[in-house]
């Protein structure tokens, strides 16, 4: 019967529909376990268990989050100015952003590394790289402030940086762009890349006690793009591994021209050997210019020194220094397992994840198991160095970090997932989707000798529908996974500043107790400090006026200043006299083409102000400091250039004369 047939057809159609809908990938809410909220809930008044230092990408800053709550604790200004904190605006901090190109107000901070002792985080410093104008910064974890920035000569786009050796002997900086060395004439045709462009790796030594950075040496390498790197550790301590792409040496349309070869390279550098060569005087002194900037917590002032020499080791001439390991298709991450035995290469366009064995590499070097040379550097045989390949891991592998149970976690940009696999048998164990397109990932202690293995954070490039829409530009996002069990569990989304690249997760106990609460006023050696209100004054020096000012709850001293004239440059040197935790004072002045000052207790900071009109100009405290914060204000009188108003300053005494009141 016809009707019967129609019913039959309908039934088939419904069955098919049902099958298709059940095949449809589950939406993300299904992947959240019911206990997720309790896992990330840190009750009011309680501390998080971990600090999460997250690169701010194109914001140029470093952000600090608490985990597992994902609460933003602080944005530390590093390579970009920060008017909120006066960073790059106050006279004291301006030298921090000085370079051989002069003052630069912005950069792009990609990668973050905590200082290490014996392969584990020691909680002293965190380093960051500037990807645009090549620099490395050291941030002091006592003050959570940028303590030092060093510029890198012979470099452009400091990308494979600031990766660190297991005792913080060196922080490295490999150039992303190869360029003609600084001491050569750069005015050459771009298409002479192969002949004239070089890739430089900088090894920055870090002093054990005070963290002072110095470019110990540079290694000149073939003109490739150096992408990422990791130091050997444990057994492989003494080696450094750099991923290279564009071994085609293209100088245009890299998208196509640098994706031609089947395999690019991971460069293995024997830095212990480099030290020997350096000692033996095999380095060549090269005349260059780069800035070295340091901030002192005693003078509360940064100084910028222009350096003019580096020592360069030539990878072409010096044998046993560098080796190339072939690695499939434009490797990005090259990550070293906790024991240092395995090096994981992640070819952005590769179908497998190759895992190289350190011992196998040594054997291949010893046996001279080469397939050729590239600009004097031996190229090892892929199969001889390979420990194994992770098959069908996903699409677009980028970065790998490790847990404490012998597992690796690799981010996949194209297939938008994190994949967990076992280092020994190379079997894929679990996959977790990310929302969306994960770039970097970070496991607590995941690049150290002893990973914690409790949490993993994925840093995603695309958020689309994850948060309330905010116009064309959307927040970037971090996603927290609980990796303590067999299956990875997504437990939290939290938005991030700028664009997060690498991050580090360290136990709070390692850092929190060393935090500076305030600076001792007795130890303040700023040139313009006023140690007490009795020392405040206003001094004219030609067209320069220096105001030695103090701030204490709830007044500035002086708070009435007269005798400033048009054409003057006025420097407000404000000392915060407070000696207690969490009592900063701010300083703002109407019409100043500058930022505010935010002055920590015991500190002196200077704001330069050039009056632009005659009149009365208010000043006030910008940081709500006390019940009488709104009373913390003052006035500056600006007179015409030729005026004979005398220079006076006072606090509480500039009151109307009695007869004037009548």
């Amino acid at each position: 019967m016809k009707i019967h047939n129609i019913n039959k057809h309908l039934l088939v159609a419904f069955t098919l529909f049902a099958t298709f809908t059940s095949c449809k990938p589950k939406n993300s809410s299904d992947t959240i376990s019911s206990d997720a909220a309790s896992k990330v809930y840190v009750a009011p008044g309680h501390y998080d268990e971990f600090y999460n230092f997250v690169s701010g990408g194109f914001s140029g800053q470093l952000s600090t989050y608490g985990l597992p709550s994902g609460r933003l604790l602080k944005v530390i200004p590093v390579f970009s100015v920060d008017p909120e904190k006066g960073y790059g605006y106050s006279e004291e901090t301006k030298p921090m952003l000085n370079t051989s190109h002069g003052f630069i107000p912005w950069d792009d901070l990609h990668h973050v590394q905590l200082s290490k002792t014996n392969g584990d985080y020691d909680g002293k410093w965190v380093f960051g790289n500037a990807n645009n104008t090549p620099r490395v910064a050291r941030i002091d974890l006592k003050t959570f402030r940028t303590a030092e920035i060093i510029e890198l000569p012979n470099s452009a786009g400091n990308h494979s940086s600031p990766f660190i050796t297991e005792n913080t002997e060196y922080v490295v900086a490999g150039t992303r762009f190869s360029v003609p060395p600084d001491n050569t004439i750069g005015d050459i045709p771009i298409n002479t890349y192969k002949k004239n462009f070089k890739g430089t790796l900088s090894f920055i030594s870090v002093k054990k006690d005070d963290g002072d950075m110095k470019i110990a040496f540079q290694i000149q390498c073939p003109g490739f793009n150096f992408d990422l790197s990791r130091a050997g550790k444990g057994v492989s301590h003494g080696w450094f591994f750099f991923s290279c792409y564009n071994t085609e040496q293209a100088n245009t349309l890299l998208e196509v021209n640098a994706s031609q070869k089947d395999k690019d390279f991971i460069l293995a550098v024997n830095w212990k050997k480099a030290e020997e060569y350096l000692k033996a005087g095999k380095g060549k002194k090269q005349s260059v210019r780069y800035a070295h900037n340091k901030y002192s917590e005693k003078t509360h002032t940064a100084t910028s020194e222009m350096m003019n020499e580096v020592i360069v080791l030539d990878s072409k001439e010096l044998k046993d220094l560098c080796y190339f390991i072939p690695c499939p298709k434009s490797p990005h991450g090259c990550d070293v397992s906790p024991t240092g035995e395995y090096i994981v290469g992640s070819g952005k366009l590769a179908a497998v994840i190759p895992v190289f064995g350190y011992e196998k590499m040594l054997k291949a070097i010893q046996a001279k198991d080469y397939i050729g040379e590239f600009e004097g550097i031996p190229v090892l045989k892929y199969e001889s160095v390979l420990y194994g390949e992770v098959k069908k891991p996903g699409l677009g592998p980028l970065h790998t970090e490790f847990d404490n149970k012998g597992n690796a976690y690799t981010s996949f940009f194209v297939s938008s997932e994190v994949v967990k696999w076992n280092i020994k048998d190379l079997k894929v164990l679990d996959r977790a989707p990310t929302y969306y397109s994960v770039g970097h990932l970070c496991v607590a202690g995941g690049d150290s000798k002893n990973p914690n293995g409790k949490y993993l954070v994925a840093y995603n490039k695309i958020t689309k529908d994850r948060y309330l829409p905010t116009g064309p530009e959307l927040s970037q996002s971090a996603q927290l996974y609980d990796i303590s069990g067999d299956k990875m569990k997504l437990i939290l989304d939290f938005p991030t500043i700028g664009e997060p690249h690498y991050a580090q997760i360290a136990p709070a106990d390692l850092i929190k107790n060393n935090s500076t609460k305030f600076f001792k006023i007795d130890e303040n050696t700023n040139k313009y400090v006023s140690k007490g209100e009795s020392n405040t004054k206003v001094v004219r020096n030609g067209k320069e006026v220096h105001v030695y000012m103090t701030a204490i709850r709830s007044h500035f001293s002086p708070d009435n200043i007269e005798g400033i004239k048009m054409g003057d440059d006025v420097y407000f040197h404000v000392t915060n006299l407070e000696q207690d935790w969490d009592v900063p004072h701010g300083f703002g002045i109407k019409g100043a083409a500058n930022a505010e000052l935010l002055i920590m207790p015991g500190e002196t900071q200077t704001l330069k102000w050039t009056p632009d009109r005659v009149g009365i100009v208010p000043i006030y405290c910008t940081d709500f400091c006390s019940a009488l914060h709104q009373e913390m204000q003052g006035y500056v009188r600006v007179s015409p250039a030729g005026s004979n108003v005398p220079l006076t300053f006072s606090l509480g005494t500039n009151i109307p004369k009695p007869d004037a009141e009548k």
Partner: protein
Amino acid sequence: MKNKQIGNTARVILFFTGLLLIAVLFVPIWRIELNAPQYPEGLSMSIYANRIGGNVDIINGLNHYIGMRTIHDKDFPEFVIIPYIIYFFSFLFVLTAVVANKKLLYGLFILFVSFGIIAMADFWKWEYQYGHDLNPDAAIKVPGMSYQPPLIGYKQLLNFGAYSIPDIGGWIFIFVGIVLLVILFSQSRSNK
């Protein structure tokens, strides 16, 4: 027959309590603890024999709102005298132990207790002075409000809870006083 000498056990105890008094020179005698919503970690002021310790600078900073005078070591002549008094008592305890004279023991007890009473009265007087002698131009003026901390115990002063208690040195004094009292009783009983 009436025994005018102190027993040997008591003498030994007197000797050592005398030495113990020296320790009071190095530890805080009294403590005023302050708690407020903004100070979850608490603030405290410690009074030593010869100086004030603790968060006195922070407390001075806060007190300017209510117009209390700032507290400085040099404002207290007691800080010059008290160390000598402690040395004196220490010497007197040892002397009493050596000489073992009961009259001396009674004298020592009277002096020691008197000192305790005078010291507490003096402390109260200072507390009263700081709590009441307020700058009339102070930013915060609460009619009828004074800011005298308690002599001993707890009192709420605006947003601060003030808790005044003996510190190590104070407890040593109290301990020594009790020991002295016990010796006095035992020795006077042995008279019979």
